[in-house]
């Protein structure tokens, strides 16, 4: 592990306000997929910066956008002072010597029809590295360095195991002596005992060649093991950034807390205070207004009159809102609307059943019960939008109205959550109640 660099050292990579949207494939426009939506962070020289998040949160797109394998829509990426997003083709190719990528899937990221030697040699050929006869030696050296045998030069990838294939991928990434490597889930396809070996190899290589890593992973224990700093992503946004140990010991953001508590610990006595999130992440085509995590957040700010509700009661309300949101979505396309008009809707559970399922177990304050009943009536009448809006009016708070700012919560640790504002309880305090 490397210490934080001296102050005179500029960071190697500076990402600022990066946005990558995927256009809509529908004929009549529609919202783009906001895969990366305004992400900013820095990576110091020799550092390992980790990005964690669930699948679909945009972490791979982020890594690819930084290397310009995807076209970003706005924002800047500076590498050693150069603005990457404005580089022309020729400059970009020259720059790519400095930055490489190791891909997630060792079976699909290397060409089955090429020998190992040719695979590792390919970047050398493309960038005209040295004299052709030197390249051969360079490849043997690389194979040896990543723990393969020089005689593997003429073998084909199918003769290797998953771990060995990943070593081939690493050798290829190292070929041009880059400064910066994006590791996209380098070990997630491997067994634990093989994982450990690849992680050790990556650490050794970093020491030897002064590499800077951006590690993308969903496995938090891997991140904790090799990263100096970590960023937690959710739905295209960086929710929290901080030094690894600090972030794992005292996570500030509700999402980080939930994510960390969901890791199954290899210890049968652990795991009493798990926070289980409801539902699944919403579509990045249509992210929630306000905070992107607001539809699943167990720490959501409530209105004063709802603060006395129990967690279970609040969950029922949130679930009811989810159901209505989904139902409304069923009527978004013109075809669906026509079908609804004609009474040819797909069968759904009658709303009374949904309500009784969710709300009959406990007694709610009168005002809440009234709103729920009113909503149910609106649904029966077919006024889905009105029903959803009524619930929104009654229950929504700042979490759904405003995008949270990034708040400095500790030295080097920043988190996006309204609860860090002085007028609300910190997530930590909220939990301890």
């Amino acid at each position, binding site marked *: 592990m490397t210490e934080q660099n001296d102050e005179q050292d500029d960071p190697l990579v500076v990402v600022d306000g990066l946005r990558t949207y995927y256009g809509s494939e529908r004929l009549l426009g529609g919202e783009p997929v906001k895969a990366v939506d305004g992400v900013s962070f820095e990576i110091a020289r020799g550092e390992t910066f980790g990005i964690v998040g669930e699948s679909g949160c945009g972490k791979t797109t982020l890594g690819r956008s930084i290397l310009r394998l995807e076209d970003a829509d706005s924002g800047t990426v500076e590498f050693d002072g150069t603005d990457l997003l404005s580089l022309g083709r020729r400059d970009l190719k020259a720059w790519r010597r400095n930055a490489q990528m190791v891909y997630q899937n060792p079976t699909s990221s290397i060409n089955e029809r090429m020998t190992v030697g040719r695979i590792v040699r390919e970047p050398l050929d493309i960038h005209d590295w040295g004299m052709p006869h030197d390249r051969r030696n360079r490849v043997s050296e690389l194979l040896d360095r990543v723990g393969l045998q020089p005689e593997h030069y003429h073998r084909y990838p199918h003769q290797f195991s998953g771990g060995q294939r990943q070593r081939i991928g690493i050798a290829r990434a190292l070929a041009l002596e880059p400064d910066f490597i994006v590791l996209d889930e380098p070990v997630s396809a491997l067994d634990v005992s093989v994982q450990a070996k690849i992680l050790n190899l990556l650490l050794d290589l970093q020491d030897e060649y002064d590499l800077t890593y951006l590690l993308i992973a969903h496995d938090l*224990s891997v991140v904790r093991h090799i990263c100096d700093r970590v960023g937690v992503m959710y739905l295209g946004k960086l929710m929290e950034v901080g030094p690894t140990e600090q972030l794992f010991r005292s996570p500030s953001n509700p999402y980080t807390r939930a994510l960390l508590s*969901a890791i199954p610990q290899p*210890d049968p006595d652990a795991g009493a205070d798990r926070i*289980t999130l409801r539902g*699944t992440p919403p579509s990045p085509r249509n992210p929630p207004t306000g905070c992107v995590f607001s539809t699943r957040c167990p720490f959501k700010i409530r209105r004063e009159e709802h603060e006395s509700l129990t967690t279970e009661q609040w969950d029922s309300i949130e*679930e009811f809102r989810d159901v209505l949101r989904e139902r409304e979505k069923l009527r978004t396309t013109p075809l669906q609307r026509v079908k609804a008009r004609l009474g040819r809707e797909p069968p759904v559970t009658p709303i009374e059943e949904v309500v009784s399922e969710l709300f009959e177990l406990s007694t709610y304050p009168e005002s809440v019960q009234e709103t729920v009943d009113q909503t149910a009536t609106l649904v029966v009448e077919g006024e889905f939008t009105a029903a959803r809006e009524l619930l929104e009016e009654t229950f929504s708070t700042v979490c759904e109205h405003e995008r949270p700012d990034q708040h400095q919560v500790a030295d080097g640790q920043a988190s996006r959550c309204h609860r860090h504002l002085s007028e609300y309880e910190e997530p930590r305090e909220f939990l301890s109640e």
Partner: protein
Amino acid sequence: MTDESQAMSGVTDGPLLSVENLRTTFYTDQETIHAVDGVSFTVSPQQTLGVVGESGSGKSVTARSILGLVDDPGRVHPDSEIRYHDPAFVQTVARTYPDRVTWAGEKTARSASDAFVTIESGSGEGSSVTVERGSVNLVAAPDDVTRSLRGSEVAMVFQDAQTALNPVYTVGNQIKELLDIHQGLSGTEATEAAADLLESVGIPDPKRRLSEYPHQFSGGMQQRTVIALALACDPAVLLCDEPTTALDVTIQAQILELLERLQHERNLSILFITHDMGVIAQVADAVAVMYAGEVVEQASVDRLFDQPRHPYTQGLLQSIPGLASEGDRLPTIDGRVPTPNEPATYCRYAPRCPEAFEECKSTHPERVPVDSANEKSGWMRAHTAACLLYPEDESLEDRLQMHHNFGAPDESDAATTAREDD
């Protein structure tokens, strides 16, 4: 979670499912692969047995063998025993096949030579027999017995929900098909039952979901649907083959919670296969560690994590990132899992084992108690390891002798010995 005493009470109640010396072999032109090679374990009622191991260790083949789903060129060795102990099921089978029943304890008079039903206690005769305790050996049973067991007694939750569901039928269609086959439900009745099932696995607004296709479901919901399919016929045993491996941690937590709730609500016994030690620690009551087709260590979950004894288990636990202190190199296990393509006459872990000695190459370790204190507490349920280092309070010579003796009947005539033990 179970402690030692609960594990013991499981012994008196008897297991619900027991596997004895299961051997599943794949015969190909090039080689013979002993994918499962002498595996024994028991699943107690309403308990979870975790089976953990790296890829290629034979976990999934074990589960498929139990359900009779091993296809050519794979074959379950006829001397293997997979026994299902539910009295009601045994009674039904015993009445259907009265001439293939054997009574435990009195082998001579009433036993058939090709018997696959064993009755330990019961009364009556022929097609009016009543069974209080007994078992059906699924390996020797005819196909229709296995078929009647599949789904309604033992069901499987597959690893990859996306491929386990049929993409061209709606979710409702797939559940209703099962209900039709196994319970004869159709029409509105089936729709209601299907919606109830989806609701019980935590899918909100189930009736709307019934008319949707699997691709409209998120990964977590697909897995919930696969669980709903497995529960459709109200099984007593659920075989879960890596049910959460393809999921994100927050979704994994939801699914594990769901399985735990269903286990209580429906009194399920679960065989949970995974490679993730963290998941095992969370869900299992007892754990069997598999390596190259064999169970190398078995213990209650607390004991296994507190005092892992087999060098492989120790190595596996140490190589999990996060347990080692931060920044250190992870301890690793050299080499990789061998393909078990020859009979085990030696310890398959020896080439990678830091504690291997000369005899490991020539003596096949059998499952023995890790120390003699364990032996007294019923050795199948207690802490056992297949390693020449154990039982650890014996001298090396005695240990070798012991492993030889355990191994001996295997070579001569396993069939008769195993039968007579019954």
